[in-house]
Structure formats: structure tokens, C-alpha cells
């Protein structure tokens, strides 16, 4: 028997269980609405946790070395950078900011009157070699050269009036100069002026999921005999980070008895800390999704097994009249498919409704269509699985039942 011939009798049979069917459709629709949005949220979080910052994360480590004020310390920044670089396994080192750890978010202006901010950008400042330690890819213009760099004390004391050479990310260059031609232009952050010397592909200060995460600016200054506490960055030779960072931290501490090493972290650890609570919330949502799926499956199979029990006699009659076991099995599966389809159709409307609510209250993005398609497929599969047990029991009803009175 072909399946489409069964649709009409199935619908006729369902009509006499209108209430229960309507409730099941409602349940599936609500499940679909919640499920679609939850998958969207969780998947978004997971995707976000894999967005690269643009630096060579696998090889970068951070040593936060805090200078104790009032304690004498023989170490100097330039000396420290040399100490770090001579540690085994270390390829490069710098003093300065690192994505997901420290960068200033500043307003940038195109004219010195500072009237209209043209962008908000992450500002990375650091010593010579910051861009090479981070592993920046310069796609246009050039990287810093030793002759470029202003002295750190001139920068800190605001003694320098010449614009500081700066690298921009492509995204920031595009925002500031949509017509192109960023190289050589001057911009301002209210405290300093910058001259664009090069464009790098990516550098994200934070990973919030917003489009402007990748809008960043990087400045280097020349450090020397000062005693500076703060973030010392180490770039190891590929694959040698754990040993290299450990050796570098020990060497740095030895050279700076007046400093406290508060944090020694690899970039991977920084990333893990950064996303810890988001991923934890994601796990909670996954648990809720599982509960939802179980409950829906329970509802479907509960009602189906109830109907099978109720229709034993009719099933026996059909069997007696020549229907095969397969026909009975298919009947219940088709019935389930029809009900779930009804739920899915209603669920699309509910899902968008819930999405609007979440967008309004929790700044969620718009729900893309493919999440709904995936949700529909998941619910169809779930329905078929849930109905399989009762349907098999129905198929096992012997024809002889028809001859017995209930």
C-alpha cells in the first residue's frame, strides 16, 4: 500500500482525537521554538570561542611582572627583553598589550578638533618588537623600523608632538577611510596623534561577536634603561611554548628581584579564562535542550502507545482484512509524521516570536532560517524514534484480536 493513500484515513482518525492532537502539535511547536533559539545561542557562543585574535596564539605567553614601588630593582625594560630573548626556546619578546588581556578602547578622530569620533578602536601600545612578537601580518605599507620609534618617556610624558607611527587593521582602515588610501594619513585619539605606516590583516582586542572587534591600532615606542612593570610577552619557537615560557619567567624573575610575577599564562589559557563563563552558560543551555528533547519524546511516545492500546481491536480488524505488519507500522509512522509536521509549521511562527522577544530583551541576533530547517529535521527524527516502540507493538497485534470482544 502506498503511503499517500493512507493520509486521508489518518486525518479522519485524528479528527476524533482533536484535543490530544492539538496539544501534541502545540508541544512540538513550543519545543521547536525554544530549541531553535537555544541551538542558535549555543552555536553562536561556540563559534565565537574559536574566532582567532590575529596573533600567533599557539606560541605566545604572557608574564605579568609587577614592580614593587619602594623596592630597588636592578632590571631595565631593554635588559629584560634581552633576558627573555636569550631564554631557551624564545624567538622574540616585547613589553605591551595583548588581545583578551589588555588594550585600551579609545575614540579615534580624523581631525585635530576632536569633534566627531570616526571609530572606537582597541589601542595596543608596547615596546619595540611588539608587532613581530604578536606575529602581525602586514598586508600593505610596512612594519615599524628602529628609526621610527619615539622614546617611551617622551610618549608617556606627552613630550613628543610628532605623530606616532601606527599599524591599523584592515577593518579599522576600511571604517576610517572607506575610499582607501589609509597609508600616511594622520588620526587622533584625544591624547596622541598617529601616522598610519602599515595595514595588518587582523588584530582583535576582544571577541564579543560585534563587527568592530577587529578594529584595532598598534603603536610601538622604544624602551631602554627604565624599570617598568607590566606585561612582558614572549613568542616561542613553534611548539616550544610551555618550556620556553617557564624558562623565560624564571629568568625574568631572577633579573628583577624587586618585581612580583603575578601571572604567567599562555595565550591558550587566557582564551580559556576569557570564554569560561560563556561556555559554562552554553553547557547549561545544552542541558536544558536535552531535557526538552526527552520531554517531547516522552509526550509523543506516551500518546502513541495510548492510541495503540485504544485501537487494538481496529488494528486486529485491519490485519484480518489483509493489512501487513508493515502497513500497520507505516500507518503509525505516517500519523506521527503528519502531527510533527503540523507542529513544525506552527513552530516556525513561535520560533520567530521567541526570537523577537530575545532580541528585544537580551540583544540576540536575528534567527537564520537554516536553524529552523535543522530544528524541523531534528523533531521529525525524534518523533519517528519516539513512535517506533508503540508502532512496533501495534504491528505485533495479531489478527485474531478482531474476533474477540473487548
Amino acid at each position, binding site marked *: 500500500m502506498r503511503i499517500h493513500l493512507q493520509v486521508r484515513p489518518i486525518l479522519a482518525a485524528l479528527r476524533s482525537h482533536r484535543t490530544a492532537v492539538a*496539544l501534541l502539535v502545540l508541544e512540538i511547536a513550543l519545543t521547536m521554538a525554544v530549541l531553535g533559539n537555544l541551538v542558535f545561542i549555543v552555536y553562536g557562543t561556540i563559534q565565537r570561542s574559536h574566532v582567532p585574535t590575529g596573533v600567533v596564539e599557539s606560541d605566545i605567553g604572557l608574564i605579568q611582572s609587577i614592580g614593587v614601588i619602594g*623596592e630597588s630593582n636592578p632590571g631595565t625594560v631593554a635588559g629584560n627583553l634581552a633576558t627573555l630573548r636569550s631564554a631557551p626556546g624564545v624567538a622574540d619578546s616585547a613589553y605591551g598589550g595583548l588581545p583578551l588581556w589588555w588594550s585600551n578602547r579609545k575614540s579615534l578622530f580624523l581631525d585635530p578638533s576632536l569633534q566627531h569620533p570616526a571609530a572606537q578602536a582597541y589601542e595596543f601600545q608596547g615596546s619595540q618588537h611588539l608587532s613581530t612578537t604578536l606575529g602581525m601580518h602586514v598586508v600593505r605599507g610596512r612594519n615599524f623600523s628602529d628609526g621610527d620609534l619615539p622614546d617611551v618617556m617622551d610618549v608617556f610624558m606627552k613630550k613628543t608632538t610628532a605623530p606616532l607611527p601606527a599599524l591599523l587593521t584592515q577593518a579599522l582602515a576600511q571604517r576610517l577611510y572607506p575610499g582607501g588610501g589609509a597609508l600616511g594619513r594622520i588620526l587622533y585619539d584625544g591624547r596622541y596623534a598617529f601616522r598610519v605606516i602599515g595595514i595588518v590583516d587582523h588584530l582583535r582586542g576582544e571577541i564579543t561577536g560585534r563587527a568592530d572587534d577587529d578594529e584595532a591600532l598598534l603603536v610601538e615606542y622604544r624602551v631602554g634603561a627604565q624599570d617598568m612593570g607590566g606585561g612582558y610577552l614572549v613568542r616561542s619557537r613553534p611548539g616550544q611554548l610551555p618550556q620556553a615560557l617557564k624558562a623565560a619567567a624564571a629568568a625574568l624573575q631572577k633579573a628583577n628581584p624587586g618585581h612580583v610575577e603575578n601571572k604567567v599564562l599562555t595565550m591558550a589559557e587566557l582564551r580559556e579564562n576569557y570564554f569560561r563563563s560563556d561556555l559554562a552558560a552554553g553547557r547549561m543551555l545544552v542541558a536544558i535542550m536535552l531535557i526538552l528533547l526527552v*520531554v517531547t519524546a516522552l509526550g509523543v511516545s506516551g500518546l502513541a502507545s495510548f492510541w495503540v492500546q485504544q485501537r487494538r481491536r481496529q488494528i486486529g480488524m485491519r490485519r484480518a482484512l489483509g493489512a501487513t505488519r508493515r502497513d500497520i507500522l507505516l500507518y503509525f509512522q505516517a500519523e506521527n509524521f503528519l502531527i510533527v509536521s503540523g507542529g513544525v509549521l506552527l513552530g516556525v511562527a513561535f520560533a520567530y516570536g521567541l526570537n523577537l522577544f530575545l532580541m528585544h530583551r537580551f540583544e540576540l541576533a536575528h534567527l537564520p532560517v537554516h536553524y529552523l530547517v535543522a530544528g524541523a529535521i531534528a523533531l521529525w527524527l525524534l518523533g519517528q524514534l519516539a513512535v517506533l516502540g508503540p508502532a512496533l507493538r501495534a504491528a505485533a497485534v495479531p489478527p485474531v484480536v478482531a474476533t474477540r470482544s473487548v
Partner: protein
Amino acid sequence: MFGYYLDLALRSLRRHKVLGVLMMLAIALGIGASVTMLAVLHNLSGNPLPGRSDVLFHPQVDPRPADLPGASEEPPDDLAYADAVNLYRLGIAPRRTVMSANHLPTRRDAPDSPLAMYTDRATTADFFAMFGVPFLYGSAWSAQDDASHAQVVVLSRAMNQKLFGGGNSVGENLVIATKTFRVAGVIGDWNPQPRFYDIDDGAFAEPEQMYLPFFTWLDLPQDYGYGPMNCWGSDPDAGDHDPKAPTCTWAQFWVELDTPAQVDGYRSALAQYSRQQRQLGRFQRAPNVRLRGLLDWLDHKHVIPVTVRMQTWIAFGVLLICLVNTVGLMVAKFLRKSGEIGVRRALGASRRDVFAQCLVEAGVVGVAGGLLGLPLAWLGLWMVRQQPVSFAASAHLDPSMLGAALALAVAAALGAGLWPAWRASCIAPALQVKSL
């Protein structure tokens, strides 16, 4: 009659075991999920200091310039240095405390003790009595110590454990930011959640590892930040190395006021202070003061994390779906009994009787589902506690939540049973009896 209905309900459930178990499981899962989130929400929005919360108040004044673009009507949360000192010296509240927090390089005053950064709270003597902080050893420092900038320190239990192996360290010395401090006391476990007295770093942050006298702390050779600062004007970094910058607020301030008269008195004193500061030219705005009680303050600051609020909404969505599921199963179940109900009606039972009977059955399912849901909620909270987020550690089920969970389960099941029971009671007896 109730006993009889109960008996009938149990019989009916026993007859359709699978269906009964499915209904209970659905309710249990819904209750488990929603009670878990409710308990988390309840803990997060709970009273951090029961018994003391209604005498603690958070004063605010407004030192901002009159024409600050984008400024809200609400005065800053914290005080600028000058206001912190002035209000501290005002001395009309029975108790008051001014504070901030940062971290300082610290070691034991012993030759080979390693230097490390420890978080500290700089505060004044009344802090401990006002907030009911328990002491393991020693005691708080005195107001005299505050006035004389004494170098004394109170340790948390954890820090005492780390530095002194948990023993009585009162009288021992620490070197904090190169100065020598004497341990005055060690406090016991104390971790009010939300951490109401300073929510600049999030309302569910850990308490600091040690406590120092505020004015001694300001004197220290230090530049490790002075707690989160809010500065206005042309230089947003004005306070970076200068806690006394007039355009930056950063100090938390709390007062204890025991009677409504004291509260009113303090409120007018704040206004009076603002007027006086305006005459002196420090303030530009008309008196704009706030004096919120502890719970009002937490309410005003919306301390509950947005993810928790969203998860609570979702958990109740799950409960709703579970209930729709239960309604569907109950409709099917009660209609299955049409014949039985027809006979009862024919024998003289009123619709009310049938309705009551069905409702008792729904109630039994609800109680069973609720009882099953409680261990699930307990499991859920255990899972929440495993999460590496700051507020998770405090998630637990207290007796009031336990009762609420059970009540919720029964109410949910009864609610779910209402309509199916009503439908069952509408069954026309004649038709059913005929078809038997």
C-alpha cells in the same frame, strides 16, 4: 470521599503504568529545570546580610559639573576622595565606613618568604561591626588606629591558612608594599552574596584576602590602581596615578542608621553638605543626593547576571512545554475512562464528583512528579555549582525553596489537570453506557 478518589486515582495509575510514569517524568523534568533556575535566581537576589540589611545605607552625592554631556540624573555610585573624607568625618551616623580595593605585593616578615600579590580591601574600623564579620583570632582595629594611620592588618581565613598554616597569627608581621604591618585579627568564613558593599567589579566577586586601614593604605608607596575609577572631563585617565583627583569617583561609602529619624536626619545632612560644597564652589549642581537601603541599592543596580535571567525564562519555557505535554496525556487518559465515567454518572455521581475525582488523580501525578523533581533539581544545582562562574558556588536549595518547589509541582499538575478533568466531567452518560 477524598480517600476514595485517592484510591481510584492510584488504581487508575497502576492500570496505565507507562502513561502514569511518563506524566510524572515530564512534570519532574519540568519542575527540576525550573526549580534549579529559581533556586539560582533566589540565591542571587537574596539578602546578603539577613538581620542587618535594614540598618545599612548607601549615601551618594553629585560632584559632577553642571553641563556634562550624556550624564544621567543618578549621582555616581562611588565618592570622590574629598567627599569620602568629608562624609567620613561628618560623624552623625552611629557607624560609617569608607573603602576601596586593589592588590598589593605582600610577604611574611621572614627572610625567605616569597613576595606575591594579594587582594586587599582598604576600609575603616566600623566595617567589621557594621557588616557582622566574624573573627577567628584577634579583633578589628580601632577608630584610634584609623586616626593614627596605624600599620595593622586583618587577614581572611584563606590568607592566614596560606601564610601562617591556619594558626593564630595575631601579633605576627607582614611586609605590605614595603611597609611592616602587624596582624590584628583573622576573620572566619564571610562571603555575603551579592557582595553588596562593592559591586564595581561585579556583584558576585570574591571577598578580598586582607583588610587594611583606609588612610594607612592611601599613604603606602603604591600605584596598583585604586579600585575601578570613573572620571569625567577632558582627561579620562586623570585618576590613574592620583586617587585624590577631583574629577574621579572610586570610594565606596556605607553608613549604619538605626532609626527612621536617623535616616531622615542623614538624608537632610547629605543635602546640607551638598549645598555647602556648592557655596564653596566645589559642587556645581543643586543637591542631588541618594540614601538607599542595602536591598534597594541591590535592586537599583540590577545585580543579577543577564545569562541567569535568560536561563530562568528558558527554564520556565521548559516547564510550560512539560505542562502542555501533561495536559495532552491527561486528556487522552481521562477520555479513555469515558465508559467508567459514564457508569458513575449514570449511577448518580454529579459532574462535580467526576471533576473532583479526575482532579485528585491529577494531583497525585503532580505530587509524585514534584517529589521526583526535587532530586532532579538537586542534581541540576550540583551541575550549576560545577560551573566555573563566580556566582555558581552559592547555588543551593534551602527549605523555603524546597517547599516552593513542591507547591509549584502540585499547582502545575492541578493546573494541567483542570481542563482535562472538566472535559471528562462533560461526558454524556447515556452515550457511554450505550456503547458498553
